C-alpha cells in the first residue's frame, strides 16, 4: 500500500534540523566582550569553526548531518534512532567544548579580562539537540527505567566535559557566587517541601471527605479553581498584608518566623496552588476504586481506616501520583517567583541576575530550577511505572 511522504518520513525531526540550521546561521553562538560590564560582540558558529575547526570536527559534523538525513527518512529504524541519540550526546558536549576552547584561547590570546558569554545560538542548538534526542528515544519505545538511563547517558559526555568551560563567563559567574548555590537549592527544596507535603495530607483528607459528602465537592472545587487562576505574584501580594497584620497582632507568630514577607506567604500560596491537582487526582483515584471491593472489604470486617490504607489508597495511588507529580513540578517552578516576596531560593539568583542585567546569573538560577523540576518529574514517572508493573 502506498504511503504518503509525510507518513513515511519523520517531519518532527526535519523541523528540528531546519530550526537547528537556522539557529546556527542566524543567531550568535557566543558573545565576546573585553570585560564584564561591556556588552559583547556576536560571534557566529562559522566564525568559531573557521578559527578553531580541525578536519576532525568537519568530518564529525558531516557524519551527523548524513545521519540526521537518514533518520528523517527512516523513522522506524531502531538502530538509526540509537545512533541519533549517540550523535546528540556527542553534539551536546561538542558545542560546549567548542565554546570552551574559544573562551580559553580568547583569554590566552587577547586579554585575561575578556568575557566569552554563551549566545542564543548556543542555547538554541543545545535545545534542538535535546529535542532531537528525545524524539529518537521516544521512537525506541523503552520502559520508563531504561528511558531514564538513556537520558542520563545522553547528558554524560556534557557533564564530563563541564570543567573544560572554566573560562566561559558563565563559569566565572558561578565561581564568584558558588557559595550561594547550595543554600539556595536547599532553600528552594524547603519551600517546595513545606508547600507540597501539607497539600498532600490535606488534599487527601479533602478528597476522602468528598467521596462521602457531595456538598463539600460542590463547595470546594470552584474555590480551588479560582485560586488556580490568580496569578502567582498577585497571590503572594494578597497574602502579604494579612500575614503582616497577623504577625503584629500575635507576636508569637512573628517569633516563629511568620510575617508578611519571607517564606510564609510563599509556602501558603504554593500550598493553595498545589491543592487543586492533588485533590482532583486523589478524588479521581478514590472514585475508580471498585464499589464491590469496598463492599466486600467492609463485609469482611475492615475498619474505615483499614479500608482506606489497604484497599482505597493502594487502588487510588496510580491516579494520585499523576496529580502529585503535577503539583511538585508546578510548585518547583512557581517557587522561583516567590523570591519576589523575600522567600529566597533559586529564584533569588534569577532575579539578582535580572535586576543587574547579568544574563549568565539568570541562567545559573534557571538551570537548577529546570533540573529540579525534571528530576521530580522523572522520579514520579519511575515511581508510577514501578507501581504499574503490578497489574491492575
Amino acid at each position, binding site marked *: 500500500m502506498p504511503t504518503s511522504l509525510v507518513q513515511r518520513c519523520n517531519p518532527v525531526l526535519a523541523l528540528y534540523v531546519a530550526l537547528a540550521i537556522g539557529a546556527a546561521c542566524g543567531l550568535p553562538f557566543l558573545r565576546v566582550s573585553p570585560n564584564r560590564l561591556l556588552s559583547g560582540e556576536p560571534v557566529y558558529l562559522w566564525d568559531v569553526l573557521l578559527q578553531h575547526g580541525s578536519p576532525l570536527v568537519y568530518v564529525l559534523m558531516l557524519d551527523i548531518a548524513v545521519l540526521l538525513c537518514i533518520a528523517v527518512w527512516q523513522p522506524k529504524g531502531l538502530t538509526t534512532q540509537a545512533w541519533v541519540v549517540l550523535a546528540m550526546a556527542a553534539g551536546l558536549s561538542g558545542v560546549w567544548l567548542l565554546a570552551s576552547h574559544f573562551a580559553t584561547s580568547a583569554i590566552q590570546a587577547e586579554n585575561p579580562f575578556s568575557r566569552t558569554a554563551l549566545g542564543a545560538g548556543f542555547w538554541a542548538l543545545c535545545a534542538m539537540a535535546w529535542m532531537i534526542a528525545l524524539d529518537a528515544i521516544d521512537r525506541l519505545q523503552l520502559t520508563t527505567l531504561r528511558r531514564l538511563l538513556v537520558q542520563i547517558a545522553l547528558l554524560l559526555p556534557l557533564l564530563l566535559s563541564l570543567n573544560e568551560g572554566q573560562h566561559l563567563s558563565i563559569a566565572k559567574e558561578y565561581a564568584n557566587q558558588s557559595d550561594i548555590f547550595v543554600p539556595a537549592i536547599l532553600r528552594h527544596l524547603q519551600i517546595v517541601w513545606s508547600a507540597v507535603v501539607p497539600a498532600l495530607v490535606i488534599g487527601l483528607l479533602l478528597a476522602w471527605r468528598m467521596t462521602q459528602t457531595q456538598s463539600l465537592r460542590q463547595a470546594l472545587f470552584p474555590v480551588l479553581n479560582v485560586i488556580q487562576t490568580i496569578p502567582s505574584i498577585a497571590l503572594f501580594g494578597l497574602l502579604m498584608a494579612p500575614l503582616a497584620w497577623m504577625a503584629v497582632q500575635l507576636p508569637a507568630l512573628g517569633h516563629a518566623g511568620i510575617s508578611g514577607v519571607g517564606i510564609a506567604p510563599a509556602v501558603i500560596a504554593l500550598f493553595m496552588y498545589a491543592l487543586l491537582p492533588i485533590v482532583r487526582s486523589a478524588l479521581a483515584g478514590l472514585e475508580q476504586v*471498585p464499589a*464491590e*471491593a*469496598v*463492599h*466486600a*472489604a*467492609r*463485609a*469482611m*470486617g*475492615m*475498619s474505615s481506616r*483499614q479500608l482506606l490504607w489497604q*484497599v482505597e489508597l*493502594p*487502588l487510588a495511588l496510580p491516579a494520585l501520583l499523576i496529580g502529585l507529580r503535577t503539583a511538585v513540578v508546578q510548585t518547583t517552578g512557581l517557587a522561583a517567583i516567590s523570591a519576589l516576596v523575600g522567600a529566597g531560593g533559586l529564584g533569588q539568583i534569577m532575579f539578582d541576575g535580572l535586576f543587574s542585567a547579568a544574563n549568565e546569573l539568570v541562567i545559573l538560577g534557571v538551570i537548577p530550577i529546570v533540573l529540579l523540576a525534571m528530576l521530580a518529574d522523572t522520579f514520579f514517572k519511575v515511581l508510577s511505572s514501578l507501581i504499574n508493573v*503490578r*497489574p*491492575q
Partner: protein
Amino acid sequence: MIRFEHTRKLYDGAAAITDLNLDIQQGELLVLLGPSGSGKSTVLKMVNRMVSHDGGHIFFNGQDINSFNVQDLRRRMGYAIQSVGLFPHRTVAQNIATVPKLLGWDAHRVQARVYELLKLLALDPEPFASRYPHQLSGGQQQRVGVARAMAANPDVLLMDEPFGALDPVTRAALQLSIKTIHRATGKTILFVTHDIDEALLLATRIVLLNQGGIAQVGTPLELLQQPANDFVADFLGRADLGLKQLSLRSIAPHIQAIQGTEPIYAIAHTATLREAISQMATLHVSSLSVTDAAGTVIGQVRAADLLENQHA
C-alpha cells in the same frame, strides 16, 4: 446458631421485612429463596450488620448481634457476593488471606490455610496463588471469592447469589463444590438465590420469602409436595412440581432384580428419577439396567415402577 425474633426492617418508612421469625440450626445449608424485592438479600445482610434491623432481635450464638463489635462480628462470618469483589491490587493468595491477616494470624498459618483452601476449591495453588484477579475467569474468581469467605474458618458462611453471574456449566460445577464443602465441613451456610433449581439442589432447608415475609419454610421435598399456598406453588412452577420432585429422588429404592433379558442401556445407581425417566424418553425404552460405581450391572428399573411407587 442464628435466630431472628420479630425482626423488622424499614426502607424509607415502608416495611421491607415484616416480623421475621426464624431459627437457623448449626450445620444447615439454609437457602433464602424468593422473587426480586422479597427481602431475601436484606435478611442475609442483617445477619452481619451490613444492613441494620429496625425492630426485633437477631441472635448469633445466643447473643444479640448488636452486642458484638461490628468488625469482630463480620470477621466471624464469611461473606461471598455475586460481584465477588476481589481486591484487584492483590494476588489470589493475598485476597484469600484478608481476614486471617486482620485477625493477626502468623504468616505460616496463613500460607498453609491459603493452600488448603485453593485445593478445596479445585484451584492448583502453584499457578493460582500468585495470580491477580483479572487473570482469572469468572468461575475461578468466584472460587477465590468463596475461598476468601472461608479463610478464617468462620462459624457461618453468608452467600448472596454467589453464582448468579456465571454460565450454567461453571455454575453447576461451583454448586457441586459448595455441596461437597458443606458435607465435608458441616458449616452453617446461608445462601440467597432466586434460582429454584439451585435452591432445590443445595438446600437442606428452604425459606421462601415473599414481600418481606416468610411464605413457607421446609425441606425441598416438603415445599414441592405440600406447597402452603398458591404463591408457593406458582413460584416453584406449578406445572412441573412433579418433575422437580423426581429430581430430588434417587432411583435406588426402585431397583429390582433382572427378569428375562437385560435392558440394553444402563444408568448409574446414583441417578435421580428425573435422569432415569429423561434417559428412557430419549432412548425410547421403558427399562434401564442399573450399574454400580464399578460398572457392574446390579439390577434394573422400569418406567411403570418409577412413577407408581413414587409416594411409597
